């Protein structure tokens, strides 16, 4: 029986993928890796089928937007959980805003279906291989991706409210 901790997971991933693993750190004890977006499918299947790790529970998929990091504006963040060993892993994949696309995780996790649709809906990430990638929470006619940072929270044409005193 091996001791499954962050160090072990990191060693396993490094041995398997080498330089596709860009960086790793542990904010608040949760191992976080930045990974090559083109190999996300391989990583997820590797962790899923790994004899010891058995990371077979996809907790969460969400997007982020960093407008200032050129070429890596849009991020997709996976939280994966191994229920057998009770360890979690956070995987981040970044992609340019011109063509944000990444392989879909639906081939492995049914739960990725709506979560990826949500990420597409809010950040415009194209999940390649998703069978039904369309908006889920917003109206179908919407032609922008509202969670991107350039979209203001409220309609900028309103004159009846002055939020400047509140730092908004």
């Amino acid at each position: 029986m091996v001791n499954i901790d962050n160090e072990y997971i990191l060693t396993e991933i490094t041995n398997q993928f080498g330089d596709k693993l860009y960086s790793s750190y542990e904010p608040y004890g949760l191992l976080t890796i930045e990974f090559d977006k083109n190999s996300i499918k391989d990583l997820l299947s590797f962790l899923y089928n790994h004899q010891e790790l058995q990371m077979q529970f996809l907790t969460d998929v969400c997007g982020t937007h960093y407008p200032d990091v050129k070429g890596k504006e849009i991020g997709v963040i996976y939280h994966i959980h191994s229920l057998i060993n009770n360890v979690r892993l956070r995987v981040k994949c970044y992609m340019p805003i011109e063509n944000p696309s990444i392989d879909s995780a639906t081939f492995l996790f049914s739960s990725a279906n709506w979560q990826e649709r949500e990420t597409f809906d809010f950040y415009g990430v194209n999940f390649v291989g998703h069978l039904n990638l369309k908006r889920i929470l917003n109206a179908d006619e919407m032609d922008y991706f509202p969670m991107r940072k350039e979209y203001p929270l409220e309609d900028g044409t309103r004159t009846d409210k002055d939020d400047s005193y509140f730092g908004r």
Partner: protein
Amino acid sequence: MIESLELNTKSKDEDYNILNLGPTHPATHGVFQNILKMDGEIIHDATSTIGYIHRAFEKIAEHRPFYQITPLTDRLNYCSSPINNMGWHMTVEKLLGVETPKRVDYMRVIIMELARIADHLVCNAVIGVDTGALTGFTYMFQWREKIYDIYEQVCGARLTTNIGRIGGLERDFTPECIRLIREFLNDFPKYFDEFAGLLERNRIFMDRIINVGPISAERALNYGFTGPNLRAAGVDYDVRVMNPYSSYQDFDFTIPLGTQGDTYDRFMVRQHEIRESLKIITQALENLPEGKFFADVPDFFLPPKQEVYNNMEALIFHFKIIMGEATVPVGEVYHSVEGGNGELGFYMVSDGGRAPYRLHFRRPCFIAYQAYPEMIKGSMLSDAILTMSSMNIIAGELDA
């Protein structure tokens, strides 16, 4: 044993009826739309449309200081708001590295377990309503009101509670509050047993819901089920036990499990969880430690009002907190709590600003509800209604 129904596939699409169930159908308890492809009374295929009450909470949260996000979490699963509130406060505490006193943990556990009872009561009572047993519903809603009376003593609100503060609670339990909790612990089990007696071993009720909307453990895990829905399928994943927060490791309780993940199992898991919650509350109340009801975080814990009006420093802190001017560390944090219907997660990225840079809610309803079409395929229309109410899908949490 799960029986799979054989579907007769018809050759032409015209042979099916399309039935639009929702978005405002009285039997679905919320804004849910399902477009059903019907073969007589059998559901052949279903498509769920969601987002009817989407309120862009994640976008709003990127523009609000931490305290102003708590009311947003109220409106996720509004049947158990206190769990959401405290989950959020604990997320912020994790980011700030705040250690809460034991008394705070125990007080929170009491309120969270009361909220879980309220949540499960509504769900199970509604299963009764959907099978035609209205009596249990009226009985149990009376007890939900009693729980709301306790919330009212703690924070002043009943449904959308906005309970607690970062670092603790707004005030200590008053003697009246303790009395109400004791009264609840004393009186409720008797009435709850009566409710259980109405339904749990009722032949008609059992025949109606056994084998309705089943899901296997493998599929449930693959669909990201958590909470009672997953445990009904036989997987003992409970965040309270797996990753204890708020001193849950101090309490002695069991995780009820089902076997085949059908409506009856979900009903029974919730029934037993109510009993376990009562056990936890009793233990917490008996062993309630002495001490302060807040942690030492003057930058986040609002000072008492008397001091704000009479003391310069308190006034300054009050303004700083309300305006969100306190320093926040840069970092990212994921914290999850066992919500009313599963793992409620908060993923927050902080850039040191007054509002989170990114806040994502892992909403158990949203993730579980995508299995709904698969679960009702091949069943009767009336079973689809039961499946939905037994999954305890709350529209507010589904759409965020």
